[in-house]
């Protein structure tokens, strides 16, 4: 598989490492509800101490951190160009064929 890094061009899979579902990024942060998008935790919850939320929330948040969908088909995942420019990329691909539909900087997708 090859990924077209926005900075480095088309590069071999071995330069990248995979993290997981882009939609789950930051799900474990304070203030981030389950399924909240990237960056959602940055502003909220400044005064809440550890374990402040109800247990039900903690359970749902733990699920958001630990459980992932495993779709056969379109999937938007986070990849790290570790042996390249160290950019985090959001790569949309078909998990069955590895056809890549879109590669964008996670930084931009998160805004």
């Amino acid at each position: 598989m090859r990924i077209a890094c926005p900075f480095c061009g088309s590069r071999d899979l071995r330069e990248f490492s995979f993290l997981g579902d882009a939609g789950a990024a930051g799900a474990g942060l304070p203030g981030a509800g389950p399924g909240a998008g990237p960056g959602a935790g940055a502003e909220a919850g400044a005064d809440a101490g550890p374990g402040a939320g109800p247990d039900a929330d903690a359970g749902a948040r733990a699920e958001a951190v630990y459980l992932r969908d495993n779709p056969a088909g379109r999937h938007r995942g986070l990849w790290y160009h570790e042996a390249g420019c160290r950019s985090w990329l959001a790569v949309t691909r078909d998990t069955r064929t590895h056809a890549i539909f879109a590669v964008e900087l996670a930084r931009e997708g998160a805004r």
Partner: protein
Amino acid sequence: MRDVQSHRLDAAGLVDRARPLGFRFDGRAYEGFLGDTLASALLANGVRLVGRSFKYHRPRGIVTAGPEEPNALVALREGARREPNSKATAVELFDGLSARSQNRWPSLAFDAGAVNGLLAPLLVAGFYYKTFKWPSGFWERVYEPAIRRAAGLGRSSGLPDPDSYEGAYAFCDLLVIGAGPAGLAAALAAGRAGARVILCEEDFALGGRLLCERDAVDGRPAAAWAARAVAELATLPGVTLMARTAVFGAYDGGTFGAVEKVSDHLAVPDPGRPRQRLWRIAARRSVLAAGAIERPLVFPGNDRPGVMMAAASRSYVNRFGVLPGRRVAVLTATDDGWRAAFDLAERGARIEAVIDPRPAGPPALEERARRLGARLLRGGRVAGTHGRLGLTGVTVAAAGGRTERLPVDLLVMSGGYNPNLALTTHLGARPAWSEEIAAFVPGGLPPGMSVAGAARGTLSLGAALREGHAAGREAAEACGLGGCAGEAPRADDEAAGLAASWPVAGARKAFVDFQHDVTVADVALAHREGFRSVELLKRYTTLGMATDQGKLSNLNGHALMAGLLGRPIPEVGTTAARAPTVPVAIGALAGHARGRHFKPTRLTAGHALAAERGATFVEAGQWLRPQWFAAPGEADWLATVTREVRAVREAVGICDVSTLGKIDVQGPDAGAFLDRVYVNGFSGLPVGRARYGVMLREDGFVLDDGTAARLAPDHFVVSTTTANAARVMKHLTYCAQVLWPEADVQLASVTEAWAQYAVAGPRARRLLEALLGAAADVSDAALPFMGAREFEWAGVPVRLFRLSFSGELAYEIAVPAAYGDALGRALLAAGAFLGVAPYGSEALGVLRIEKGHVAGNEISGTTTAGDLGLGRLMSRKKDFVGRALAGRPGLVDPDRLRLVGLRPLDPAGRLSGGAHLLAPGAAATTANDLGYVTSAAFSPSLGRWIALALLRRGPERIGEHLRAVDLLRGTDVPVEVCPPVFVDPEGVRLHA
């Protein structure tokens, strides 16, 4: 004394008769020529018997002239370079080559294992499953060892491979796979149009069938045209010709795997050259022009040495100048097969008969064959073959059934062509059935691939050239290249004249799969016993499971099953082909990643100095770190480490800590950023100060610990543990780019940019004063505990931190890595009068255990900050990664295992890492387990063994007596639970 080349022609072929090459087969000396394969050279010397079959040990000869060969498998070379199951038809001859036949004892001509042939009625498909069932206890002790001895063809040498391998990447607009007519035409068209082309050919010669047939292209003999085409390709700047390179797999994103046999045509690789090179080729487009493989016919005795594919016989006579037989019968179900009769007759063979099972065919072929004096048996068949170790005759049956025995030494056969389409299926596409050529042809294709010539089922030369040309031109256009592709080469459109001739049940000793001895009867048995899908047929009979992966046999076997089932072949289907399409040595896949080169070895700037000082090194991730510095007269490593620890506690020691990760964090939001990644706060840290911090994972467990120093309001340098340096960098970039893209912060890994030494011990300040002189004030007032300073010393930028891992008065001094060696030497020189000693990672470990500092043993991915006694660091005033989930009930459960110290009750008692903690009198069971020892060391400061441990409700048990039970080492040591800080718990020395 060498044998004469009895079957070598005087003129024909592309071998260089001025370049004789000596070789040995089964110890006997022969001669061949440059340009031969081992198979062609053996045939030139009249050698027909080259191996014994897998199951029945039947005599076998050379069947093909290419990499699809099922029979002529030999052990190539001697000693550590011996390679079993080498295909003689694909081995390029070199001077001094040595090969041995396989699967025979005591000799090839007299093989005791041939007794299996008499047992053939017993050794049918499923024999193992039916026979070795009982008694069950016999399987491991008797059956399996016996079967393992009998299994397999060749034997590996068992010695380490003396050769080297390497990996390489290549990039192109167009990858052309196969340098036959279609491939050469494609490469020419695309190369002329300006494309970057890579042309891979498995053979050592470029040209494919053009080298083996007596056709004409553009009015020239085919081989001469091929030579001109190759010469033109060599002049095109964007074209790379790669002979001896087999493309073995198609992967995602236009990536292909190929193995280049760089040195296999030499006795020994040239110095500095690899034996093979593994290529990863990234191609925008690809043209598969891998040709087709001729299909055998299935008839009684079709495996006897002297029975050969018709196209292979033309390769031997036309390319290698070898006459594979002098009296020949031709058995062909195709018009194409008749060409063998004409080509062999042209070079002096006597054609006894042409047997064609089809009732009618082109009269011109028959007229030409009749002029050769050959008998024509339309609608005929071969009823049997004769000759103990090689063909001496065939029994043919005419259409009416009348049989006759003909004296021949060569029987060539042609059953049609199977396109080489495996690379089209690697990404999941399935082949499609072509009624026209009675074979599977490519169905779907990988993105960017097109197929041309025989690989597509196009079996006439003219059409193959046109297809190749068009595919090359289109690929160049698709890449945006508009140069002139030139004209397509021209040749005859003579059709191959194919008609299906499938095996039928009933024939005796008619082999479907030569390499695994699968006969018509075995397939029929599988059908009778219900193993009817092609996948079950494969596993029950082992059809297609040999090293040739069924290249010759699969379709015949499947067609036979289809006939038995009364269903069409495409409905019965075919098994899936997977990469690699050719055997690839594990060594080639591994490349340089072997032995100590399995991973890179990273050396610090101080490595040479440490080696000079007699360091013993230890692997720490990819790094080599000094473990200890043994002095003369020290009894063992423990004596050495004890001395090093004492030097630090009583005088001063230096330790290379360059391997710790260093991350530069800069930007207006640097402080706020660190507040979010550490559990404790950093935005309030004054410039010129450092702070210890702990990072959590998003799930609330500890990720790593270390210090961060503030060098300027917008500039921090973060240190990580050696093991987690890359992980923390990845985590921090994730936080900065994905979680908080709005933060104005930049990160850079500077681990290798700085060499860093710890200077620790009560005399550390005196050493630095001696070293730095007026360059820096290192007094306690100017540089208090956790202070950080940047300054220049002798023109070199220096970072000096007052940090302590050992618990002593200590500093870490960093200089650009290029000065690391000089810094280490200067420290030793400046400290000589203070008794400075270098210390290694082992002493570092003892020092930190004595101080109760956690390290990788404790930060194991299962511990929380609270478990490690670091819970008080967790800020309640701010967000940080991991805070929310660190508050889950399971992570704050008071019953968790928490950090404590341990002391043996007996001062002479010895503790070991991994020992489990039990109450006195409790049985050593999981239910009674209270925790375990994470780190243990002999403490020179206390004169006894000590340990750190994770203990259930640990801090509440201080003063309790437990047992440290190590079932692996068989020890059971009574211990007392104590606080984890063994030396200077008040921290007086730190602040000295």
